[in-house]
């Protein structure tokens, strides 16, 4: 039994592999540029962030290739490996990726834990790893000089929200809900609390939950019975964003809801419905609310390619990650990983959908402006851009 299964599998694999290799080989005469994509496409929660990122990345590569490729007509070829929401799969995927002949860079992941499973292997292979969605600002310090972030660090967006909440909205006492099962959300809460209390604000209530929770009724009731709260900071990923707003508003709580880029998903509007989705403020990558330029181009292209609007900001981040790497390759004029890595580190003004990427000297987390969006009237309304101090 096992023999025929594995035998069949081997034969099938060999067959598919050969077609996969022969077809592009026959169609192209110039050597392709190899980029690896490591995303959690199946098996669990992160695929709702990673799949859009991967789509964004593929879209950008296709647009570059359709426009004639880079380095004199060479096409980008993506090797995508599903990391299956599993750190072991991620590590082996990274190992497979760095073994690809002529690999220029790796792109992927929306969660710091998984970025940390992959990036060290790229680091030791001397190949840059650009994360499209992991936002822990400590990642480059933990991994090394081959680790680059496309998004701003969580410290930046959390500080921005803290300042906006305290200074502009005049809020003083917040309740904080944190998804304890994600590094992203725990980090966001830490940075927000740090800046908000520094400014003189108070945290009146702290409550925690896990990503897979869908029933927030107990937390809502507790929030309702806590006095002296001006607002709720919901440190949440996209999967729980809409549900949280819906459940808070349905209970008749009208407090402003503050959040990070995990709220940058259509679910925040559609799950609670137009009547309830209001007074929600979140920070995000500067493309939401912008109707022109690269943001508009991206939206249209995404819609055309996948027949759906970008699911969340991670789609734009994947798109930008690919664009950033292509830009670095162009500037380096080479596909040598070391040269590309150097060019990446020297990025001073890459015009992405999610804002202009610039890496400060010696840092590999970009300084990007933070957009603040206010949800209301059935729309995401761009409020302002904040560049937090210090």
């Amino acid at each position, binding site marked *: 039994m096992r023999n025929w*299964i594995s035998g069949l599998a081997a034969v099938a694999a060999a067959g598919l592999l050969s077609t996969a290799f022969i077809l592009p080989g026959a169609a192209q005469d110039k050597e392709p540029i190899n980029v690896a994509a490591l995303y959690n496409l199946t098996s669990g929660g992160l695929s709702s962030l990673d799949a859009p990122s991967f789509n964004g990345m593929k879209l950008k590569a296709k647009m570059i290739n359709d426009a004639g490729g880079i380095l004199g007509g060479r096409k980008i070829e993506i090797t995508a490996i*599903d990391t299956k929401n599993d*750190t072991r799969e991620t*590590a082996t995927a990274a190992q497979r990726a760095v073994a690809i002949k002529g690999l220029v860079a790796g792109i992927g992941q929306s969660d710091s834990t998984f970025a*940390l499973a992959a990036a060290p292997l790229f680091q030791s292979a001397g190949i840059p790893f650009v994360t499209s969605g992991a936002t822990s600002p400590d990642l480059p310090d933990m991994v090394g000089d081959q680790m680059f972030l496309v998004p701003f660090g969580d410290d930046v967006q959390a500080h921005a929200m803290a300042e906006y909440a305290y200074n502009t909205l005049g809020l003083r006492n917040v309740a904080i809900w944190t998804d304890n099962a994600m590094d992203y959300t725990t980090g966001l809460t830490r940075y927000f609390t740090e800046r908000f209390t520094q400014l003189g604000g108070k945290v009146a209530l702290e409550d925690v939950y896990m990503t897979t929770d869908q029933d927030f009724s107990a937390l809502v009731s507790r929030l309702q019975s806590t006095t002296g709260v001006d607002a709720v900071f919901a440190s949440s990923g996209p999967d729980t964003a809409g549900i949280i707003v819906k459940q808070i508003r349905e209970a008749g709580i009208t407090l402003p809801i503050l959040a990070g880029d995990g709220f940058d998903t259509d679910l925040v509007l559609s799950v609670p419905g137009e009547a309830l989705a209001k007074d929600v403020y979140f920070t995000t990558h500067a493309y939401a609310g912008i109707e022109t330029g690269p943001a508009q181009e991206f939206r249209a292209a995404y819609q055309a390619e996948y027949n759906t609007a970008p699911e969340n900001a991670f789609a734009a981040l994947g798109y930008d990650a690919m664009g950033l790497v292509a830009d670095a390759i162009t500037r380096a004029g080479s596909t040598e990983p070391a040269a590309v890595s150097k060019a990446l580190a020297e990025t001073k003004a890459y015009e992405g959908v999610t804002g202009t990427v610039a890496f400060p000297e010696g840092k590999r987390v970009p300084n990007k402006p933070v957009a603040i969006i206010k949800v209301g009237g059935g729309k995401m309304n761009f409020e302002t851009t904040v560049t937090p101090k210090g």
Partner: protein
Amino acid sequence: MSAPAAFLLRFALPVGIGAALLYAATLSLDPYSLTILQFVGINVILAVSLNITNGFTGLFSLGHPAFMTIGGYVTAILTMPATRKTAMLRDLPSILAAHEWPFAASLTAGGLVAALAAVIVGIPVLRLRGHYLAVATLGLIFIVQSFAVNLPGITRGALGLAGLPPVTNVWWVYLVLVLTLLTCWRVKHSSLGRTMLAIRENELAAASLGVKVARTRVLSFALGAFFAGVAGGLWAHLVTLIAPGSFSILLGFQLIVMVVLGGTGSIAGAAIAAVVLTLSTEWLRPIEEAAGLFGASQIIVAVGVILVLIFRPSGLFGTAEPNVFGAFARRRRHAQSTP
């Protein structure tokens, strides 16, 4: 039963050949294939050790990932350089924080702590039977995971412990593998092993023959947990990362599949099933990547599992050891028994 010396002789030869092959592998394989080779080894350790609990004694435990998490975290915390410990893990007791343990000692400690947890949990929980035990041990995964997530001062919460020293290599993995196989083999063919099999076949009868059922059950649970803990440590230092979600229910499921497909109670069967499943999952990856159908490989493996269950319901080998291993099994062969 033959003399231990003769047993060791028969054991030493395959081990020697294995070591030579491994050495050849380290010289010729690329890092990716070497890593897969190590995961194959770790999966064999896990399947074979789970087989002590599930196969020999017939306890339907899904809890291996919980013990791997415990062992993995303990090992990781112990091997971590002292300076990083104090910086990253605030709530760690100072005795642990001040020292950096060698890998072998850390692995053993990881295994022991996992075994200790198994004893503490096992004494009450192993009174349950069948499916109830399966669900209780499944719950154990959730409980351990919850603690790993919610004790950031010791575990760094959801982020997990990253940047662990990459000390796991093929030699460590296959050394532990040999020790695991050796232990399982000796257990299976000792009076303890016969006691376990007796409990599996008929608990009441075993009890009436004076077998200390409760103690044997806890012992087999703890023994399985020990190797799971060690494997968790190896795993963590191979991936160089351990996070609360590293060892999931899905993994527990895959391990059970290995044990059942191999033939509940068959050491070689579990080992072979572990190798085949791990490799076939890897081999299927290029298919789904080429076709862009992510998830297809898991579907294919799952369908394969169902087919094997339909056509070979007692697994590939039953409780017996396959003939290839007859060189040192022939006279110890147990009668094939299907539950």
